[in-house]
């Protein structure tokens, strides 16, 4: 057998396409340099020193620190609790949405708001409002309940805030899952005399179990990687992310921080691998095919009323927490003087260089968004539509970034680029410049963009692109004239998501930003740390307005200029 002549021919065909080859080479270089290399540097840093050679001393040293060991248990405890609570809440919401007959438009609106809020809001908004509602000067604790020494800081503070932040992710995941269950399976069981509870326990539950595991791990990873909330509401309850941050900014112990980052990365990576390669496959295996027809919704009042009430209350609570922030910026002194004022906003702009902060944040995010969107579309195109050797590598590494906590990436960049690549001085210029901030934004948003790009492209019949190719277009033309126009909506939303994620990012960026740049999120963090909640809220409010505004703008744009409208309107 002329073994794999086809592989050789495919390679030849690929090489005949210089734009393709260049793109792939550039991509691989980018991914290697800005994702793999910084992580590798961390690993090397923590086991190898110039004088000491190969050593485990640094690991020994950090594990000897009681604070570090406590941080590990704290992180795992919080992650576990948040994973469980978020999954339960997510399941509740998804179940009500898919199974229960809810008449009101109001409920539909609530659900939509709840699923959208975490996308558009900066990470620490809930921590801020938690403190303002339930803290020492909290409206609810102090004024309604007359408790004067309530502490929201610590385990429960972080757990509650993270749960409320992350459960919408579970809700969206599980909604998709439940919708895919063929109703006839459950009807068959019901038909044979099973009670509604038995049907859930015997049919629905086993089907969604892998999906629940999946949701649990995803939130677990998010919780562990979260930096902003533990920073603000953790108090003395340190997690790994905050400990690493303090280790490098407070103790200036770069090797120690690197080793800690390796530990954190090992945990998230292990979970990510389990989630991606075991649970995702299982989820897909148990739920093949689409539901064949619409489900008979539960109308039984004894079921619908309590479920509806519980969900509404939770949703309203979440919304209230978000609304609390703008008010925090409008009251004279939170907790003492509730007269309205614009002084915080004035102070933000006049005293704290608010304008510069907004301009820097805005411009950097604006620069990174198109790069991210284009990059993720190119990666998705290559992954879904083309075959070549390095494809697996490209897909794996760009998704890997999902499992890398921002803090870890930040430390990796510091160690990897301060003295240039491998200490050679090559690229050392980017450290401290706008370029590295933009790159971090891109890398942080790449997995989400790629993921949505891949699912959008899978919907497009392969033969549409092939036909263009067949008529004489090269890969570049096919991508520009066929692929990109067909996934315009996905591209646009990728653009806005990347922008929003970048302008609200903090964990990696806080380690890399130099005084030359003022970023809103960093400002919020700083003022919240100091206890200047009025200023923090004013910053946060304007940030929410920007992000919410861009999402609205995008939706309008898609509605009027999107491809799907043009293509759908006649059907």
């Amino acid at each position, binding site marked *: 057998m*002329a073994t794999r002549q086809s592989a050789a021919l495919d390679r030849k065909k690929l090489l005949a396409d210089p734009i393709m080859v260049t793109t792939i080479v550039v991509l691989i270089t980018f991914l290697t340099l800005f994702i793999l290399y910084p992580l590798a540097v961390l690993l090397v840093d923590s086991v190898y020193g110039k004088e000491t050679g190969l050593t485990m001393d640094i690991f020994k040293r950090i594990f000897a620190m009681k604070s570090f060991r406590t941080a590990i248990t704290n992180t795992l405890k919080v992650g576990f609790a948040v994973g469980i609570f978020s999954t339960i809440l997510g399941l509740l919401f998804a179940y009500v949405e898919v199974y229960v007959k809810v008449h009101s438009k109001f409920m539909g609106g609530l659900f939509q708001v709840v699923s959208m809020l975490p996308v558009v809001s900066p990470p620490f908004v809930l921590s801020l409002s938690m403190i303002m509602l339930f803290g020492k000067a909290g409206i609810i604790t102090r004024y309604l309940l007359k408790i004067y020494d309530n502490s929201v800081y610590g385990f429960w503070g972080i757990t509650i805030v993270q749960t409320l932040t992350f459960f919408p992710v579970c809700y969206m995941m599980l909604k998709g899952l439940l919708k895919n269950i063929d109703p006839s399976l459950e009807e068959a069981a019901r038909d044979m005399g099973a009670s509604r509870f038995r049907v859930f326990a015997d049919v629905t539950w086993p089907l969604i179990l892998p999906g629940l595991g999946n949701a649990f791990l995803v939130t677990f990873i998010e919780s562990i990687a979260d930096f902003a909330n533990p920073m603000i509401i953790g108090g003395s309850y340190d997690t790994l992310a905050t400990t690493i941050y303090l280790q490098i900014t407070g103790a200036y112990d770069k090797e120690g921080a690197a080793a800690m980052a390796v530990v954190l990365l090992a945990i998230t990576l292990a979970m990510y691998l389990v989630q991606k390669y075991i649970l995702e496959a299982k989820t897909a295996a148990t739920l093949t095919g689409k539901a064949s027809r619409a489900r008979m919704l539960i109308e039984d009042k004894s079921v619908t009323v309590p479920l509806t009430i519980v969900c509404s209350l939770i949703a309203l609570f979440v919304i209230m927490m978000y609304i609390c922030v703008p008010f925090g910026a409008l009251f004279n002194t939170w907790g003492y003087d509730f007269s309205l004022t614009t002084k915080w906003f004035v102070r933000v702009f006049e005293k704290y260089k608010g304008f510069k902060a907004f301009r820097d944040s805005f411009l950097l995010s604006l620069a990174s968004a198109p790069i991210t969107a284009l990059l993720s579309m190119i990666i998705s195109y290559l992954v879904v539509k083309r075959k070549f050797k390095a494809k697996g590598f490209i897909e794996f590494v760009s998704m890997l970034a999902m499992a890398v906590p921002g803090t870890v990436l930040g430390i990796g960049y510091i160690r990897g680029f301060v003295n240039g690549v491998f200490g050679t001085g090559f690229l050392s210029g980017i450290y401290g410049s706008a370029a590295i901030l933009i790159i971090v934004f891109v890398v942080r948003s790449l997995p989400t963009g790629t993921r949505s790009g891949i699912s959008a492209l899978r919907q497009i019949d392969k033969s549409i692109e*092939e*036909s263009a190719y*067949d008529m004489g277009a090269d890969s570049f033309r096919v991508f520009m004239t066929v692929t990109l126009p067909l996934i315009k909506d996905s591209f646009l939303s990728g653009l806005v998501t990347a922008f929003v994620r970048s302008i609200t990012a903090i964990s990696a960026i806080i380690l890399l930003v130099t005084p030359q740049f003022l970023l809103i999120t960093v400002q919020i963090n700083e003022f919240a740390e100091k206890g200047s909640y009025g200023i923090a809220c004013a910053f946060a409010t304007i940030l929410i307005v920007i992000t919410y505004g861009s999402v609205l703008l995008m939706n309008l744009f898609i509605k009027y200029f999107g491809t799907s409208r043009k293509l759908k309107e006649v059907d």
Partner: protein
Amino acid sequence: MAKEKKGVILEHISKIYQDPKTGKDFYAVKDTSLEITPGSFVTLLGPSGCGKTTTLRMIAGFESPDEGEIYLGGEPINALTPNKRDTAMVFQSYALLPHYNIFDNVAYGLKLRKMDKATIKEKVTRILKLVGLEGMESRMTNQLSGGQQQRVALARALVLEPGVLLFDEPLSNLDAKLRVTMRTEIRRIQQEAGITAIYVTHDQSEAMALSDQIIIMEKGVVAQIGSPQEIYYHPASEFVADFIGEANFLKGNLSAKDGNGGIVTVEGHKVPVVGVSELPEGKECTLVLRPESAVLADSGVLPCKVIVSCFMGSYQNYHVMVGDTLVKITDYNPRNKKIYAVGDTAWVAFEKENIHVL
């Protein structure tokens, strides 16, 4: 309008795929050699999964062969990408570009060839007229019926005046009536333009009606190549005979031979046959008898017993037993003769020219 007619040659072509379940390699197409003369209309016919689409995709360049070489107009094209090959494919799913209107869909390939605007406009207008879509230039693809989309796909391929046109079951989504209209149109356009066409289908009447040559494929291997008549009346194997139309198979033994003619003994009865010059005497063989080539009569070649007799309007359908072998017979105009009932004994009668020996 055609420039140069181009032939296609496949030289020992194989394609190996990996079974996604077992991970084992298997041949989707195995050691296929074909020679398609310039300007002819050739159909690839075979059951589902036999490798028709794979063969077509290798010619178009979407898949690379694992063995062998493909020639287009005498040039080896193995290493050429699809956009560099002088072929145009009409996809089963049409694959129109949904964000372009009809004009832009048809003009897409011409624009890539850097033609000037006036020429493009003229060519597109002419081809749209040819397929009967004049005046629909500005419609979007989803504002067309299936048959119209089909014709856009056809026009888009034809306008490029390719050396070879490739069709992958282009009519499979249409209703029976439209299929007949469209296939006649395809044939007419192909003949007018004199383009070499390779057409994949698993509808045998379509293949019969259109082709100069039919290539029957079975599990990745070419089972027979020939004109429609050759394939129908002189199938090379039981598979081909069974696949094309209906066939009865009678096992026998070539008991006597005289030049081209001979006698085959079936179930103890002597059946005169022709076309056995290549078979040695005494050889086991199979007789292929088309149901419409035989009739039931009071005297004939093989005695039988009727087990099914069914009136179908224009013909009478019989199942009869010749010894242990079931034979199906469709008898047109039986009222001229006699209609047999279940349980009757009778004779299967046919001319020796109507029987094919394998």
